[in-house]
């Protein structure tokens, strides 16, 4: 498969602070790459370096075969960028914003009109051409921002938390749009804090404390040896009074880690522990109705485990 985004040992220092350290990854065409990590871990810095907004201190990156530092201007024609903050002109209308960004990318009038129609249709902005942007809802603002970033038909689209702060329906609609774009061959690079969004990505990278600590398909990450060390196993326990059960389970020496997932508990148990032993332990403590079965860890389990491991390493 053709690689469209390639980062090799990207590093960015701001004075003494290392914001991004030795980050490498490869993303094939038409994939949705989910980029995750706590706030301040270096996500936006990586995006900014890939978009040519920041110069890397070391390492290099290529987008569609073009070096982001040496040919920054060439890269700009191939990428679309939707920043974390809504960044269109609120005092202009939908149409005026589209026209401005189209002209900024050098689209000729006839082509611009054609592209405007296409992105308006794609983003579902019909009938809003003359509406002032500050009167749009959050979801529609995001759709407009997306529409603007698609005018010049970029091969690669960077989206920095595109769904932050918008309602679940609008969120679903944005993702439907992203899938459609990926199907048409656009490569998407998306940062998010939502685990359900991460699960939808074809590949995810997890950055913690300026280092890329995991990168791969969600299914592969769940099978990483660091996540289930030394024959340990993940279980899901369905029971009542989950909070009290969690406390007991955490005190059990066979349990390495446990956390609540809605009505159930996810736990990582040491080698040799099976579902029967866990249900037996809870039954002995007075639970009657419960169910326990081995599961794959969720992405949240993966990231929380990785974060703890790295925090422990950094701490000592």
């Amino acid at each position, binding site marked *: 498969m053709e690689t469209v985004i390639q980062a090799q040992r990207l590093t960015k220092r701001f004075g003494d602070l290392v914001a991004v350290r030795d980050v490498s990854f490869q993303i094939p065409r038409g994939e949705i790459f989910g980029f995750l990590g706590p706030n301040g871990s270096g996500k936006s810095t990586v995006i900014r370096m890939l978009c*040519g*907004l920041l*110069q890397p201190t070391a390492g290099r990156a290529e987008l569609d075969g073009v070096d982001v530092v040496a040919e920054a201007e060439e890269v700009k024609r191939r990428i679309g960028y939707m*920043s974390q903050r809504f*960044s*269109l002109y609120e005092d202009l209308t939908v149409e005026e914003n589209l026209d401005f*960004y189209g002209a*900024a*990318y*050098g689209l000729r009038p006839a082509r611009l009109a054609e592209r405007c129609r296409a992105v308006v249709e794609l983003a579902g902005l019909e009938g809003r051409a003359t509406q002032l942007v500050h009167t749009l809802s959050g979801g529609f603002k995001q759709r407009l921002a997306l529409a603007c970033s698609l005018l010049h038909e970029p091969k690669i689209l960077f989206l920095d938390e595109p769904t932050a702060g918008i309602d679940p329906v609008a969120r679903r609609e944005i993702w439907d749009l992203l899938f459609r774009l990926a199907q048409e061959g656009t490569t998407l690079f998306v940062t998010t804090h939502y685990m359900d969004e991460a699960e939808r990505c074809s590949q995810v990278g997890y950055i913690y404390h300026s280092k890329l600590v995991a990168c791969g398909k969600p299914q592969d990450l769940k099978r990483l040896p660091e996540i289930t060390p030394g024959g340990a196993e993940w279980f899901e326990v369905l029971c009542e009074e989950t909070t009290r059960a969690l406390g007991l389970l955490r005190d059990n020496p066979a349990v390495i880690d446990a956390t609540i997932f809605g009505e159930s508990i996810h736990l990582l148990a040491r080698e040799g522990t099976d579902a029967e032993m866990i249900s037996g332990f809870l039954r002995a403590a007075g639970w009657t109705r419960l169910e326990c079965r081995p599961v794959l860890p969720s992405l949240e389990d993966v990231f929380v485990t990785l974060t703890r491991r790295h925090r422990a390493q950094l701490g000592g």
Partner: protein
Amino acid sequence: MFRGLWAVMWKEILHIRRDPATRFVFAIPLIELLLFGYAIEMDVKNISSVVFDLDRQMESRALIKEFESTRYFRVILEVYSDRDLEQAIVSGRAKAGIKIPPNYSRDLVNGRQATVQVLIDGSDSTTALRLLQASQALGFLKSLEREGFTQDLMAVEVRPRLLFNPNLESANFFVPGLIGILLQLVTVFLTAFSVVRERERGTLEQLLVTPISKGGLIVGKLLPYCAIGFIQTGLVLLVMVLLFRVPIHGSVSLLLLLSGIFLIPALGMGIVISTFASNQGEAMQVSVLFLLPSILLSGFIFPRESMPLVIYLLSFLIPATYFIEILRGIILRGAGWAALWDEALVLLSFGVLFIALSVLRFKKRLG
């Protein structure tokens, strides 16, 4: 009644401590007080003057020395024709011209009344009035030194003549200068804010990922404000002529052309200011820092020649200084291109400098 006062006050102190602008909070008033305190308390003195000495005797030399020792006049140049004498004043190089006739020393020695002519640029009424009084007092003093002369028949009669603004109306002096200051105020603020607003709202970052170039961005932002500045110039000139009754003695088209040239450094300054500020509040502070000196040190209110040397030299670094010179030159003295090309050249250089500086400072990359 004051519930939460302490909490709010403490929070505010924390804000102030964190705010990078705080570094300048105490420095700004001190610097400006020093600058302006000196400029403001200055009396009229050391006014640039030219001398046309047709007599060239010991007596005439002594008279020039005496003019200088009043400390109102400072002879910067000697000229050799009436035309040069007047031209020095029209061009703005000098504000006074002393003409000593060929028979000055002979008349003086033979006990006849000697006359001296003093041409004074009347456009700055305050300065002109002082020079008028000083030159007449000098004539009176010279007469007292000699016997046989009364107040009616003085040994040396100094005949002052006011060029331009013969009625010494202060509006004539202040209004053209005010036009320069206002034009600068508006254009600097408009451009500085238009860039900072984009930075503040995050739209600048979006612009930087498009293929728009730095030059395209800066000039594209400047041009509309250029047009606004030009229309403003026309409007204020109209009000000046119609309402304040200050006639334009020189060429109106030259005035408009040179105003256009002044807009380049003014707008460029706005962009430079915007590169120092990350929000509109900071832009305001930096703008004031830039604009106050141009109000007080440009010669708009106080004659630059009277300022202490350091501040006088500083006034050369202010574009408004040259523009006010141009405005007064054309409007009050009817000066032409020949007298003003050097000011125009300096303004143009400032313009190029500011635009280059803004392109350099304007980080295309956010890091």
